[in-house]
């Protein structure tokens, strides 16, 4: 192949962008995706898996100690009653949002480039929601009454308070986790059937076969399946927007200066998509090299993702400015103090870290060279996630640490157990992701095959291998006989 990847980005065939490079046939797609699961476990996989598992063990130790001793093992105290626990929660829920944006919102907008990355982005969503749900679960102090969050009466015959945003949050995140898992599983069924049909051993055939549900690729089945997939996308779209909106209401419905602001729901959703795309990039840069998927996950995909990050990062920057304007315009001295304190107070280092990582650094994505440079993308994806973690830290801790009265001011410092819980949550996330890439097809082959030119029922093989519009092709070449008796 004489053309480089960069050339192909700029030479769309028949007015459509080339999404999959090297013109593979259907079987080549099956091979490259299934081979990654079927071959012997590479050493590189263990190099990622063992440290992840060690960090997951650290989470187990940290959580056990927390349960044994109480939440005093964290650096929490009056006035900072929420710190890294809720920061981590909001951070991980936000990560998940990019997966749903890719799988649902881009599906509704018919963005076909999503097919190369949607499976792994959805897996990322589910694992991120698992990490997120850990923190509200363990931060309650008395974990044995955590069931008070469920919609059932407790031993005093009392019900949870459904009028509280904290309970809305329980519903929003658990429904989000459930619907994301359903959506992911429905998408997996045809690929699980593919793994079943290729299986060489009885164990594999049975394991993949059970979960493939006896899928036989029937068009009568595809017909209902595609309807279900479209409906799930249409349901997941308002759902994902509601989830981070409701998470933001945990803060916005309170009356605390720094939290009580109506810009939070859209601002949180934009930030969530921003950080989630950064995490997708981090994972995809590694996976496409490790599993030789450069022709499926192309620079074009990275280019698109970087553009979305530029947009959402700039929206987040606009929201930071709006907060300052609103506090000044409110004329409320406590509001004004809170925001000046963010930028100039004891946590100014965290505030300016956030601004540098989230607002300034993504501006490099105005340049196409940066959007298609793997090293720049990889470094920035990590920088942006550091920034987005600090955003949640700044919102939560700087709003709490200087209470209305200077006599009740304080400064939060994390303990070793705060740090262990954060690192441990990354252990949980990467352990799950390593298991995913080892045992499940990480690219949605049934969807990638549909974006190949020859998947079009009006495509005809030719030297140019181009898509011909069938209405235009018939009078010109006329190789296609008109179906007799067609209605």
């Amino acid at each position, binding site marked *: 192949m004489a053309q480089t990847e960069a050339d192909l980005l700029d030479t769309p065939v028949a007015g459509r962008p080339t999404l999959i490079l090297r013109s593979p046939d259907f079987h080549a797609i099956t091979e490259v995706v299934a081979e990654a699961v079927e071959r012997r476990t590479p050493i590189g996989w263990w190099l990622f898996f063992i440290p992840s598992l060690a960090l997951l063990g650290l989470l187990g130790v940290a959580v056990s100690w927390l349960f044994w001793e109480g939440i005093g093992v964290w650096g929490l105290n009056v006035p900072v009653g929420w710190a890294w626990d809720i920061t981590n929660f909001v951070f991980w829920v936000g990560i998940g949002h990019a997966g749903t944006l890719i799988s649902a919102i881009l599906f509704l907008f018919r963005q076909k480039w999503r097919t190369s990355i949607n499976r792994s982005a959805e897996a990322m969503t589910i694992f991120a929601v698992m990490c997120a749900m850990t923190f509200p679960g363990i931060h309650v102090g008395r974990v044995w009454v955590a069931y008070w969050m469920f*919609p059932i009466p407790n031993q005093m015959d*009392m*019900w949870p308070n*459904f009028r509280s945003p904290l309970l*809305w949050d329980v519903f929003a995140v658990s429904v989000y986790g459930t619907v994301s898992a359903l*959506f992911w599983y429905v998408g997996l069924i045809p690929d699980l059937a593919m793994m079943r049909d290729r299986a060489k051993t009885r164990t594999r055939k049975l394991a993949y076969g059970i979960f493939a*549900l006896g*899928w036989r690729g029937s068009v009568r089945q595809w017909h209902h399946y595609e*309807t*279900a997939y479209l409906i799930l996308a249409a349901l997941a779209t308002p759902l994902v927007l509601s989830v981070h909106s409701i998470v933001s209401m945990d803060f916005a419905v309170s009356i605390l200066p720094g939290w009580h602001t109506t810009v939070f729901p859209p601002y949180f959703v934009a930030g969530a998509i921003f950080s989630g795309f950064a995490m997708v990039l981090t994972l995809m840069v590694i996976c496409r090299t490790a599993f030789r998927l450069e022709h499926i996950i192309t620079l074009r995909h990275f280019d698109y993702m970087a553009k979305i990050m530029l947009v959402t990062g700039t929206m987040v920057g606009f929201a930071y400015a709006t907060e300052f304007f609103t506090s000044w315009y409110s004329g409320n001295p406590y509001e004004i103090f809170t925001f000046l304190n963010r930028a100039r107070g004891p946590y100014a280092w965290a505030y300016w870290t956030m601004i540098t990582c989230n607002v300034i650094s993504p501006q490099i994505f105005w340049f196409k060279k940066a959007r298609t440079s793997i090293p720049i993308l990889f470094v920035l994806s990590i920088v942006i996630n550091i920034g987005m973690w600090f955003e949640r830290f700044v919102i939560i801790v700087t709003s709490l640490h200087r209470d209305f009265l200077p006599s009740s001011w304080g400064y939060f410092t994390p303990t070793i157990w705060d740090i262990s819980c954060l690192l441990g949550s990354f252990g949980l996330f990467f352990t799950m992701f390593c298991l995913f890439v080892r045992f499940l097809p990480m690219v949605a082959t049934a969807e990638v095959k549909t974006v190949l030119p020859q998947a079009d029922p009006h495509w005809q093989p030719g030297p140019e291998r181009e898509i011909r519009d069938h209405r235009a092709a018939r009078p010109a070449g006329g190789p296609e006989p008109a179906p007799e008796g067609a209605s």
Partner: protein
Amino acid sequence: MPFDPSRTSGSSRAPYYGILAEFATPADLYHACERVRDAGFTRWDAHTPFPVHGLEGAMGLRRSPLPWIVLGMGLLGAALGFVLQWWVHASAYPLVISGKPYFAWPAFVPITFEVGILFAALGAVFGMFGLNRLPMHHHPLFRSKVFERVTDDAFFISIESWDPLFDQSATGKLLESLGARSVEILES
């Protein structure tokens, strides 16, 4: 495998499942489906590794009733979510919290929405399973060796032997004439 009608008995009520024909490309399958549809067959199906655009039209399938199931489930979920909150706070255990009214309907909106979405999504997935008769781990098609490639790169039409128009010799010849790469008889 070339089609050989002598392999089975001549009765149209034969104890075999039907005929399976393989096509090389989505385009071949698409045009073959149009012909099979126009010939008037009803008990038949096409099988593809991925959803081929427009094939349900070429097969003459009607719209899926799934959206109605989802709508019903979504409305049921939203109603249940709302009634639960009303019943708990205004009827079963009225308690003043933060000075909010017992029947604080605006505060009930988020959970009503979430439960509605949950039920609708469950309706979409399990409704789809029901309409597709899944799970179904055994099927005569799985006896065919060539059918293993249906999830990879092969395209098939299967016509069941209990279709009123089915005649194992004529139907097999029809499929061959439509450009099938191979035609085989499926044991039941």
